[in-house]
């Protein structure tokens, strides 16, 4: 069964609940979109207070969940690295490269970028003082991620399929063409008074 596993991992983070995102990914239209792109698994990190919502949404789905195997858990205090890796292509374990859909928390974004897994960032527009949308938009502009509203996730899956070919290397390297900046090591050295 794992011979052609393709997984989509969804994370809402630890601090704030994100019910709109959960409802959007447990919607029939989204599962159909996943199926169209040959996904087999959906793994959801739904947060501490959202277990009932997760189970309710599951029960509303047509039997067979549109051919997607769905699993969920509240949170992993050891970090989500191992879950994110399930979306990474691994031929020896029979997995083709999947997708991560994440809230716009920096920890999750950096985690996915480090693994090089295509990432769809969904800012939580209900949060106060929302600077997350700017981050998502800027990262999309530079070609690192796909930014999406929770309403448009079906098209975001399609856009993410095209992402790997264009995805830039992470962490960004300061190339010859780019402006030279002082690195953090240099700044701290400056302050300490090291000359080398």
């Amino acid at each position, binding site marked *: 069964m794992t011979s052609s596993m393709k997984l989509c991992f969804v994370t809402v983070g*630890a*601090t704030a609940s994100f019910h709109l995102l959960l409802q959007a990914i447990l919607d029939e239209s989204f599962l159909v979109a996943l199926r169209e792109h040959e996904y087999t698994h959906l793994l959801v990190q739904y947060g501490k207070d959202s277990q009932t919502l997760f189970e309710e949404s599951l029960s509303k789905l047509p039997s067979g969940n549109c051919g997607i195997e769905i699993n969920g858990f509240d949170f992993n205090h050891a970090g989500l690295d191992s879950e994110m890796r399930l979306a990474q292509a691994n031929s020896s374990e029979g997995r083709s490269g999947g997708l991560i859909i994440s809230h*716009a*928390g*920096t*920890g999750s974004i*950096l985690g996915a970028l*480090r693994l090089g897994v295509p990432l769809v960032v969904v800012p939580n527009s209900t949060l106060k003082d929302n*600077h*997350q949308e*700017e*981050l998502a938009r*800027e990262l999309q502009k530079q070609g690192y991620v796909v930014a999406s509203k929770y309403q448009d996730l079906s098209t975001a899956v399609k856009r993410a399929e095209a992402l790997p070919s264009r995805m830039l290397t*992470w*962490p*960004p390297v*300061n190339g010859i063409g*780019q402006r030279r*900046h*002082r*690195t*953090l*090591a240099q*700044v*701290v*050295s*400056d*302050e*300490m*008074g*090291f*000359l*080398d």
Partner: protein
Amino acid sequence: MYLSLNSLMWLLLFGGVTGLTAVTLLFYALSTSQNTNVPKWRARSTPTHLLVVLGSGGHTAEMFSMLRRMNFDPSKYTYRTYVVSSGDNFSAAKAVEFETEYLRHKSIDNPAESYTIVTVPRARRVHQSYLTAPFSTLNSFWACLLVLRGRHADQKPLPASMISPYPDTILTNGPATAVCIVLAARLLRLYNYIGGFFSSKDPSQKHGLESTHYQLRTVFIESWARVTTLSLSGKILLPFADRFLVQWPALEGLRAWKGMRKTEYVGMLVD
């Protein structure tokens, strides 16, 4: 009547001049102590003390991401102090992980005594009343002063090679505790500068004063998540931090007011 009005005028003039002089002197002292110079040079083998302010999941994860990316060299920054807020076990655990798993591999000459983790009370807990917040903020500020002077209960004695209790450089990316630490560092520097006027004759003290002149330097790094606007901590600390680094071009060149140091755009520092 006429006379008393005249004397009142003189009194006002006198008071005005005195007040103006005092304010000018204070500003002079402030600006001078704020613009301490970094040491002209420092030999590579000199012991150094770096203080890193951690706080809340995102900030802490970003900070260690940056320290890894800068290829942190424990033989260069020989002693590290990590400041965490009370109740923040995640940050404390990450600091231990960074020290024991990451740095241990980098250098064999990196004993366990080369770092310490200090817990300071929160300025304001979530859901705490705004009535009591000023007191808890003062409490937190006081703890920060103790940390900087090496007098906090959590602190082990510094290695004997350290001449001063003050950290050389303070590195932070903007949790609430950072505001207290940076302001406390500034206050200590002002205090040392003014204290320098009154105890200048004794040569042994003179030496001590000079070494404090280039300590307690503060480096503020605006969070990677801040693309077009500064965070609240950033806005507060813009006029106070010695170096203010930003990771997105839209934040480059900001300053508190005319004539002050500008923010430096350094590109993405995270990995």
